[in-house]
């Protein structure tokens, strides 16, 4: 048997079905594992995909879960469109969270309308600062940013850990976690008795802005030109270095906002697990979302849903929590592969 991939766009009516097919396929192949641990696959997938949407509380939790992914997804999208392969959203997010904490713990005297914008600005700046070195290395020395940004994630984590084990170690519990930020710096809740907070609106606003820049402004077109053909872009009079630098910095900044979001909306203090892989998930969100703002929005909700669902499954059916992780990873890979059908057809001969 031989697989051949041919370029041939899928008919328009078929495209929305592709993610559904991916889900079906995933259910099919992971059912084996579900049965292996003695659970009913139908129940399992009910909890995975439907249950989180079936109650108001858990639906809101899906939104909460999606919030940082909207931001990291937007961050990665912005960079990738501009031709900057930012794998470092994780580290930029950590730096954003660190800056937000540094500001937040000193805001006891400040009203929220001072504290919150300050934290957002600080987080954005810190994310930008963390991507600055890889961006400059790319622009000035032509050094591939995939690796530099990836490596700086580890460095960011070590810096956070050093701060948390050093000056910011919680004075009471002695655990590596920072003091809590001031009450005025905490994002207000959008709905009482839920965790949905201001960060969700901020994330939607960021998505909207990213969409607008990418599709409606000359700078967006310049970014695409630089991303798709830097040489030709330069020939056309576009300042490639500047465009690349701005894409990278804005991307880092948005990732930084994701960090602010976690500190001010969820934890209220800094811990080293605050990014928890969500920067990497942002890459997945951006790619699944096809590097456009609406796709990213959908992908973030989707990942938020299966993330929530995976814990629900384990609890409801008493199966190891890792079953959810397995299904989630399988779904990711399957979707990734199935998305190809939008543009290609696979011929088996």
């Amino acid at each position: 048997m031989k697989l051949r991939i041919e370029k041939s766009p899928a008919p328009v009516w078929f495209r929305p079905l592709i993610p559904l097919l991916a889900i079906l396929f995933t259910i099919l192949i992971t059912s084996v594992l579900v049965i292996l641990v003695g659970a009913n696959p139908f129940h399992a997938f009910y909890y995975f995909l439907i249950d989180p949407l079936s109650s108001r509380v858990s639906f809101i939790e899906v939104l909460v879960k999606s919030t940082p992914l909207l931001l990291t997804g937007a961050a990665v999208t912005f960079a990738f469109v501009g031709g900057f392969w930012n794998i470092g959203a994780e580290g930029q997010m950590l730096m954003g969270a660190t800056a937000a904490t540094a500001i937040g713990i000193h805001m006891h005297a400040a009203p929220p309308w001072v504290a919150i914008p300050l934290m957002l600005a600080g987080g954005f700046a810190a994310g930008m600062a963390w991507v600055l070195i890889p961006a400059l290395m790319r622009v000035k020395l032509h050094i591939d940013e995939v690796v530099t940004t990836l490596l700086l994630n580890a460095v960011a984590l070590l810096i956070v850990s050093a701060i948390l084990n050093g000056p910011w170690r919680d004075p009471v519990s002695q655990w590596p976690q920072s003091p809590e930020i001031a009450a005025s710096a905490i994002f207000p809740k959008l709905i009482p008795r839920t965790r949905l907070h201001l960060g969700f609106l901020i994330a939607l606003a960021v998505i909207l802005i990213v969409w607008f820049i990418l599709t409606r402004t000359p700078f967006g077109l310049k970014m695409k030109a630089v991303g798709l053909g830097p040489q030709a872009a330069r020939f056309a009079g576009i300042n490639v270095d500047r465009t690349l630098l701005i894409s990278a910095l804005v991307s880092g900044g948005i990732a930084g906002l994701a960090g602010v979001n976690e500190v001010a909306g969820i934890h209220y203090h800094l811990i080293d697990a605050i990014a928890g892989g969500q920067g990497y998930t942002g890459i997945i969100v951006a790619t699944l979302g096809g590097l456009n703002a609406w796709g990213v929005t959908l992908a973030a909700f989707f990942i938020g849903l299966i993330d929530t669902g995976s814990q629900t499954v384990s609890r409801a059916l008493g199966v190891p929590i890792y079953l959810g992780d397995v299904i989630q990873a399988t779904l990711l890979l399957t979707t990734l592969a199935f998305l190809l059908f939008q543009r290609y057809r696979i011929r088996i001969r």
Partner: protein
Amino acid sequence: MEQAVWLTFLVGVLAATLRVATPLVWASIGEVYTERSGVLNLGIEGIMFLGAFVGFAAAAKASQAGLPGYLWIGLGAAVLAGVIMALLMGLLSVTLGVNQHVSGLGITLLSIALSMFGFRLVFGESKVLPSIEPFGQIAIFGNIPILGPVLNQYLLTYVAFLVLVPLAWWMLYRSSFGLSLRAVGENPEAADAAGVNVYRIRYLALIIGGAFMAIGGAFLSLAQLGAFSPGIIAGRGWVSIALVIFARWDPVRAMWGALLFGAVSALQLRLQTLGFQLPYEAFLALPYLITIFALAIAGRNAPYPGAYLKPYRRE
């Protein structure tokens, strides 16, 4: 007396350096192979994890069944697991041409999830970590004064430094497979036109790479620890990615990079014992910073494989 203390210290550092470097040598040479063919395999962290788990689980089961060569059975199972993941990576990134960052990260997620799931499945909820009698160290040099402890190493360490590194170098630069591999990574169109099967070479590279990565992971569970735990890889895959770049895609330089990393880690732990209060984070960040620094020096000449990250499609 002073002298003796420092000698023990030095010998200890050297021995630990080799130990710590071993899994990195395996994994980074695996990654050299895949990257030389033009595929960045970010699944490395997961494949090492899976190798560590499958190797351990198979060895533990074989040991329970009373099989004599249970450790080798474990190692074989780990290699098989690594190869399967490599095939999956190949299906995604070579055959289907999916974005390599995402498929690699996906492979890592899947491998870790499968390992943890498998661990529960195989060992249940154990209170004490299950363990096995691991590979012992080769003690034939144990009697040599001073250097004895340095040379007392695991078989897989010996294989890594004395067989794997030279063999990998030879394969890459002195075999026709290596030539095809380099050509495929540089210019798949050219290789294809010359009659080299690009897909086959990339799959082979991924398979070899996956096997080595899995052995790197299995070294930790089968030799160094004799146990498996969720924190077993702890970022060693990412370090290996850094080493590959630092080594400019050369197996011998990758070995030196791994040794450097090993030395830094060994030193950090020993200085702590001697009472030096150094922030350990600074030490751990060192290999990453050195790599970035080395890249900055190498600058625009960093010899990335020409087809790095690019899927190949004939039509």
